């Protein structure tokens, strides 16, 4: 299994022998950068596999939203929990998964994280605390508060993050779980990835009022921020995770973002629901990797060539991972009715 790059969790305090900005080590900023780039390359390869008819089913790409998954997960420990969505590859990578095993899952191969039984929409990586993607919009909110409940009851100090798209705010379960979380001060953070669209419908047609108020209505601490700037996301996540760990209860974080591609890989003609210019504006002016890379260079934490080599290394890793998965065998037919019951 390919593991080319060191992926240490950024620590929260500066180390003496290392240049640090905002209390974060340079290596850690670079690790975050690498993770974002890893997601980007992974997703582009997924798109390629789909286009080449090498991937069964569909996939929902995370490209454009990388700063959120990486910013939030970089504030978590490896044993903290996350629950993810149909658009879950980014969360999975950000929480520490290996791309080769992920590709295997996406191709329905036995070597995949779920033996090929789950696929893109159900990828889970329990070793790194990823309790799974979920193909029911909003469906994982109960799992997230349940994990937070366990953490609190067992006194482990773990925190749970519930990632969800703004479309999930249509689901009543979100409100039931926010109420429960706040009532019992559960260590859970609701991270709303507002990429502006529920499938093919703009969120302004589906969400009345101000989204952050949905959290505040339950007395939950809520913030709204630019999801394209990982420094902003990371800083907020660190604070809120810390707060939750100390027993101060849940938080709601609403991040503005954008998905560059279609709702899923097959959603090519998008003009009927969003303008090309809008897409162009986000891609050209608000790309999270560009914003972060430029800042790194401006701060002289590193230079372009280092960033470029991170990118090419990761790209090679991703390519090896895809190849591994393409070559891997399908599960044996006898697997079809195993794991139905534990």
């Amino acid at each position, binding site marked *: 299994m390919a593991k080319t790059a060191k992926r240490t969790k950024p620590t929260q305090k500066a180390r003496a022998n290392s240049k640090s900005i905002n209390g974060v080590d340079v290596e850690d900023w670079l690790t975050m950068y690498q993770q974002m780039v890893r997601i980007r390359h992974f997703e582009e390869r997924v798109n390629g596999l789909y286009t080449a008819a090498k991937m069964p089913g569909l996939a929902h790409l995370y490209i454009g939203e990388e700063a959120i998954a990486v910013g939030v997960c970089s504030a978590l420990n490896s044993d903290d929990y996350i629950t993810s969505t149909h658009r879950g590859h980014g969360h999975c990578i950000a929480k520490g998964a290996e791309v080769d095993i992920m590709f295997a899952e996406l191709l329905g191969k036995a070597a995949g994280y779920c033996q090929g039984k789950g696929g893109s929409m159900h990828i889970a990586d329990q070793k790194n605390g990823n309790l799974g993607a979920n*193909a029911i919009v909003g469906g994982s909110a109960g799992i997230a508060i349940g994990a937070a409940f366990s953490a609190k009851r067992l006194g482990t100090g773990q925190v749970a993050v519930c990632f969800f798209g703004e479309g999930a705010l249509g689901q009543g379960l979100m409100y039931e779980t926010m109420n429960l979380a706040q009532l019992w001060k559960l260590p859970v953070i609701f991270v709303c990835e507002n990429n502006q669209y529920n499938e093919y419908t703009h969120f302004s047609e589906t969400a009345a009022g101000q989204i952050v108020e949905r959290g505040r209505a339950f007395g939950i601490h809520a913030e709204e921020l630019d999801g394209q700037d990982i420094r902003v996301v990371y800083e907020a996540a660190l604070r809120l995770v810390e707060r939750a760990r100390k027993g101060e209860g849940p938080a709601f974080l609403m991040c503005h973002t954008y998905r560059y591609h279609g709702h899923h890989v097959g959603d090519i003609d998008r003009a009927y629901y969003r303008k090309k210019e809008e897409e162009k504006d986000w891609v050209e002016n608000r790309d999270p990797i560009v914003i972060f890379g430029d800042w790194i260079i401006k701060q002289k934490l590193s230079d372009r060539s280092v960033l470029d080599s991170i990118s090419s290394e990761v790209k090679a890793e991703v390519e090896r991972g895809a190849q591994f998965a393409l070559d891997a065998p399908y599960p044996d037919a006898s697997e079809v009715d195993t794991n139905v019951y534990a």
Partner: protein
Amino acid sequence: MSTPNSQSNGTGRVITMGQAIREALAEEMRRDPNVFVLGEDVAEAGTAFKVLKGLVEEFGTDRVIDSPISEPGITGLGVGAAMTGMRPVIDIMFGDFITLTMDQMVNQAAKIHYMSGGKLKVPMVLRTTMGASRRSAAQHSQSLHAWFSHVPGLKVVIPSTPYDAKGLLKTAIRDDNPVAFFEDKMMYQLKGEVPEEEYTIPFGVADIKREGSDITIVATSSMVQVALAAAEKLAGIGISAEVVDPRTTFPLDKETLIESAKKTSRAIVVDEGYERYGVTAELASVIADGAFYYLDAPVKRMGAMDVPIPFSPALEDLTIQTADTVFEMAKTVCGRI
């Protein structure tokens, strides 16, 4: 209204199942201004399956309405609107999501007419999908029509051809009761003859899709094509199979099922829902009871494998019945091993 024979109605006009469904909706919306469509991405997108593409252009966003991702909420809205003069058609993208509508459908829609002593009624249609083999994994592939079929107060339609889909959907919209309409998402491209002239198909009338004399294969929705393919193969070895499609699980045309089994003396039931406690159980036990003194072999059930539907193509294809598995079972039931 006339109900021309479904196998070959002689019009020569061939359209897809998706087109048939859109036609039915468009015709009913023209006929009755109180019919409206509500669901996620139904308007400009024309649903995730593009089945309703074009409808919003004719009827506008007041009657083809994009909703938030709120299955319980829109179903509930449908119930209330139906009680007060409208005829809502609620679109639930994947049949797996009816889990979210169960309270509104079962505790509200199904019971309101009865609980009010007949004073209120709920003329609404919940359209949704079913069917696996789309590599959509465990939460986007189920065929959960058995649940609604269990519930007094609901009617349940599971069409298998463009012709049936159109005629039955028009009947569903005109029905004064809550009707659940399950469309196999793999069949939207299936083509079939559909006349230009208007028609409806009554509920509770099974359709004999192929006549035969040696064995009865009762099949629903997606499994009708599978059964027809199996029947063709069976003909090749000299077994004459009759394929019966109930078309509605409730009301159920028990008589046609039983009469066919009496005639052939052997029966198999095939459905894409999970086998246990599913539709095959009801159909099999109806036949086993009604044709008891005529049967030469036990009625065999063939549902989907009782496992969450796996993503991997290598596994998913093993979970649903195919022309081959039905062929083999029919051979066995006919004592040809």
